[in-house]
């Protein structure tokens, strides 16, 4: 019994070796293999063989490329091109089906390519970007989950400035926004406080002024081109003075070009940081350089050499440990993040406006790959099924002298040609779906998906690759066909594990389509659940209006005069929409402090929103200038400090950090303060000593539009500068869950895609199957089979595939949603059988329809005519 060396190694040898030497060289190697197998064992023999095959890859053994053969190859390729075209036009229906499937899926591929190309450009304009790092901070309190933030404490900046490895440090503060006045113009602007080296480290093009000194002195400001235009028209802004930001006077020291769309830092102006610092100090506030003061400031550093990053990491580790010893239950840990890792990047809190969550990108990528694969499988399936039809052609080619490799190349080329045509269609489709994708603006995706000409390169490469993937398997099958058998008797050809492979591919497609459908259904239900969730207080017909600096009491009074306004109250923030304001509280034990969330409200707030009082009473109206020491808390607060039941808790005292002691005068039932992915925290309602930022109106009117008009007029009488900014509470809540709408839209869209692709595939297969079994059907019919039993028999395989897919899809989505996704929500829906079955149901219905009409047509046909024409 002859043992043989590994076949694949042999194949490699045959591939690279020159024909003249191949025979005897291979013979020698085989001889040695046999000897080794006898003397040293099979394993050593094989190993030696493989190593030898590799070692013989030398100059004198490998095939020579003769210029003739290149010419021949080209001519051959050209003939393949012609044949491919001919084949495509000959089988128009199948070609159309394949083409559409491929085009649809490739359009998502193109979308992804463009998206990735754009996102890659983020922050690329900074020259020193390889050496720029942002310092991020991870906040952990007690047993809460760690919260990574993009902001950190200014103390970090101070410490890092002392390091050798650090060239420059930029310290910034956010929320620098307000009205700026010049002469008679007042405009609202948003920007940052930034330290001296900002313009040096970041490459924003400076149009006027000296970047080195622009942010050095207090009360200086840098404007963007647009801002400068707004304030000064075409005049030079340098040296002019503006009023703004706490009524300070600022001198313009430089003008820069507007930050481009691809910059994660967006601003209308940059005010010198030192202005802020000095103002704070003048107020007696020394807390600026506290280690825990990490919520409002950003620190960026420029290293001398990017390789020194590890040194800085170590330094930060040490600093973290030193500083955190001061805090018991809480830790703040600073670390470095490369500039290029910001967008796209991890989901941090307190990011500057533009951000792209990298998980979202990965998910989108995975989904588009799946969709493309699905279409490829379509092509593969259909092509393999049609192989019988091409068998004779293959036979003739082989007889004329085509090698197996050449036949393979021909069919792969055909697939690639196909794919290139599909690419053209796909490009068209891409421009169609682009506006739809962009309109999923809840993403806050700062891209406009411009198609640049050079994108054609990766797109074409993608098309060729797709064609290759789709065509490879059918080509393998076709090239194996033995010439003689093909020419003599076509029906005797065995297709290489034809049935099983095709069924697997089909199941794959259906599973994808069904999984998408189920995912859409579940996501949609969770979204509706979130939006309609009972928060524990009323939000219906509540309109929240921003006071924008005006006297809230006056506004409240004026608004209350309008008929249709049932009640008016004031507060500083809007809960249940993602915002949160927090502080620390203690009860009796000075060592035991807890974080709590709060809202500052007036005496009407709790009644307007219908909070449920469990004990105590509401706030009373606070006369001007007086301070109230009363607070109203929720049940969670009582539990936290063991204050007993609501009635007992009345009168007890809590100490709030930096604010002193307060007495509990009321207890409300727990309500959903954060978005429904979080549970509850202790909550405090307090009255504000300063003015309120938001006016809440409870509206009731049959003509909402007229009422809104009246409100707007009233506003204009009080404030002529700012536009009227009001939003219904319910709308705001919907917006808070906007991220989920975008997920739903995308998954829904992909479902449509995968459904179309699977149905196209199903249609193709059905048509093919019935065509190839026409004779059988007619004979059966003549023998007496009923139409329905014929139909059933034909569709049996497909039904089986659909059911299997349904089960698999249900399993996958159940796991994903139950274990991964929904488990992140404190409040969530229960996944029901109907949800999981929705995929199966919908696909079955559609499949029945498509298969149905075709089957009926075939089964009804007169058997006599068919048999006659066979």
């Amino acid at each position, binding site marked *: 019994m*002859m043992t043989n060396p590994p076949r694949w190694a042999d194949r490699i040898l045959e591939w690279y070796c020159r024909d003249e030497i191949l*025979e*005897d*060289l*291979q*013979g*020698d*190697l*085989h*001889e*040695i293999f*046999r000897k080794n197998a006898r003397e040293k064992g099979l394993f050593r023999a094989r190993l030696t063989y493989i190593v*030898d095959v590799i*070692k*013989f890859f*030398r100059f*004198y053994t490998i095939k020579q490329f003769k210029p003739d053969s290149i010419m021949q190859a080209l001519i051959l390729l050209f003939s393949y091109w012609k044949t491919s075209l001919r084949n495509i036009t000959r089988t128009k229906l199948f070609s159309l089906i394949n083409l559409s499937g491929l085009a649809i899926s490739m359009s998502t591929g193109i979308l992804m390519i463009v998206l990735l190309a754009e996102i890659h450009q983020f922050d690329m304009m900074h020259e020193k970007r390889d050496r720029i790092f942002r310092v991020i901070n991870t906040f952990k309190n007690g047993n809460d989950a760690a919260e990574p933030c993009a902001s950190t404490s200014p103390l970090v900046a101070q410490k890092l400035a002392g390091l050798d490895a650090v060239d420059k440090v930029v310290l910034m503060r956010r929320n620098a926004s307000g009205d700026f006045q010049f002469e008679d113009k007042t405009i609202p602007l948003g920007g940052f406080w930034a330290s001296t080296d900002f313009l040096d480290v970041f490459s924003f093009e400076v149009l006027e002024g000296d970047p080195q000194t622009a942010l050095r002195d207090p009360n200086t400001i840098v404007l963007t081109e647009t801002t400068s235009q707004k304030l000064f028209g075409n005049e030079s802004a340098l040296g002019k003075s503006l009023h703004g930001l706490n009524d300070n006077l600022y001198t313009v020291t430089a003008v820069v070009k507007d930050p481009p769309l691809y910059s994660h830092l967006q601003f209308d102006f940059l005010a010198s940081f030192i202005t802020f610092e000095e103002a704070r100090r003048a107020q007696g506030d020394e807390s600026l350089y506290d280690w825990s003061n990490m919520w409002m400031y950003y620190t960026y550093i420029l290293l001398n050499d990017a390789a020194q990053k590890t040194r800085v990491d170590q330094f930060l580790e040490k600093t973290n440990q030193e500083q955190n010893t001061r805090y018991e239950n809480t830790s703040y840990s600073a670390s470095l993040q490369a500039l290029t890792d910001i967008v796209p990047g991890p989901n941090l809190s307190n990011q500057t406006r533009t951000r792209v969550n990298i998980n979202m990108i990965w998910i989108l990528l995975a989904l588009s790959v799946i969709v493309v694969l699905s279409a490829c499988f379509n092509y593969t399936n259909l092509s393999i099924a049609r192989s019988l039809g091409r068998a004779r052609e293959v036979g003739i080619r082989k007889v004329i002298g085509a090698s197996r490799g050449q036949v393979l190349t021909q069919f792969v080329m055909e697939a690639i040609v196909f794919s290139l045509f599909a690419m053209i269609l796909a490009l068209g489709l891409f421009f169609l779906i682009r506006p739809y994708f962009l309109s999923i603006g809840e993403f806050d995706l700062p891209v406009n998906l411009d198609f640049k000409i050079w994108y054609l390169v990766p797109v074409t490469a993608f098309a060729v690759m797709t064609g290759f993937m789709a065509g490879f398997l059918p080509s393998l099958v076709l090239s194996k066909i033995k010439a003689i058998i093909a020419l003599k008797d076509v029906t005797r050809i065995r297709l290489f594990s034809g049935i099983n492979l095709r069924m697997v591919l089909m199941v794959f497609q259906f599973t994808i389509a069904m999984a998408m459908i189920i995912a859409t259904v579940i996501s949609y239900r969770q979204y509706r659940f979130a939006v309609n969730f009972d928060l524990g207080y009323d939000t219906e017909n509540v309109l929240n209006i921003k006071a924008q600096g005006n006297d809230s009491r006056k506004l409240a009074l004026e608004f209350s005069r309008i008929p249709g306004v049932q009640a008016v109250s004031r507060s500083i923030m809007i809960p249940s929409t993602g915002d949160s304001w927090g502080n620390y509280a203690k009860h009796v034990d000075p060592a035991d402090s807890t974080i709590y969330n709060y809202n500052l409200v007036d005496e009407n707030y709790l009644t307007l929103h219908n909070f449920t009082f469990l004990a105590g009473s509401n706030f009373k109206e606070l006369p001007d200038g007086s301070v109230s020491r009363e607070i109203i808390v929720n049940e969670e607060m009582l539990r936290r400090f063991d204050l007993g039941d609501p009635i007992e808790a009345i009168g007890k005292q809590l100490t709030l950090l930096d604010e002193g002691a307060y007495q509990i005068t009321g207890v409300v039932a727990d309500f959903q303060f954060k978005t429904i992915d979080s549970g509850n925290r202790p909550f405090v309602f307090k009255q504000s000593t300063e003015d309120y930022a938001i006016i809440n109106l409870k509206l009731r009117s049959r003509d909402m539009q007229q009422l809104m008009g009246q409100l707007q007029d009233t506003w204009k009488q009080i404030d002529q500068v700012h536009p009227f900014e009001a939003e219904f509470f319910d709308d705001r809540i919907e917006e808070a869950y906007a991220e989920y709408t975008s997920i739903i839209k995308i998954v829904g869209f992909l479902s449509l895609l995968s459904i179309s692709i699977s149905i196209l595939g199903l249609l193709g297969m059905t048509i093919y199957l019935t065509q190839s079994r026409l004779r059988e059907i007619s004979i059966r019919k003549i023998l007496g089979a009923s139409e329905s039993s014929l139909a059933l028999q034909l569709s049996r395989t497909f039904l089986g595939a659909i059911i299997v897919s349904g089960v698999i899809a249900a399993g996958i989505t159940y796991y994903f949603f139950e274990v991964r996704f929904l488990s992140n929500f404190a409040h969530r829906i229960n996944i029901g059988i109907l949800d999981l079955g929705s995929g199966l149901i919908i696909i079955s219905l559609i499949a029945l329809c498509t298969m149905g009409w075709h089957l009926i047509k075939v089964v009804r046909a007169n058997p006599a005519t068919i048999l006659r024409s066979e």
Partner: protein
Amino acid sequence: MKGSNIGEFEELVLLCIASLGEEAYSVSICDELLRVTGRKSKLGVVHSVLNRLNEKGMVKSHLGEPTQERGGRRKRFFEVTHAGKVALLKVKEQRERLWQSIPPLIFEGIKI
């Protein structure tokens, strides 16, 4: 004359070919080398040396009859050409001249 110098290993291979007569092909050359010199040379080394010798014109080759044991693949047999024989004789002569000029005393009493 260019290429008329042969290296030590090339010389050994040529000698083996000459001694094997009709049966000189790559595997048997390897075995003969092992038998005489005790050196286990890899097929690859021998093969490339044979190629070099062929290019230098010191050997020529022809394909033999197909045999069952190699799956019907023919063997390539080598024989030393006239140029090769000349080169071998030259080397032998050079060595002998050198040996003759060495006093026998130096090698007295050394056993290998």
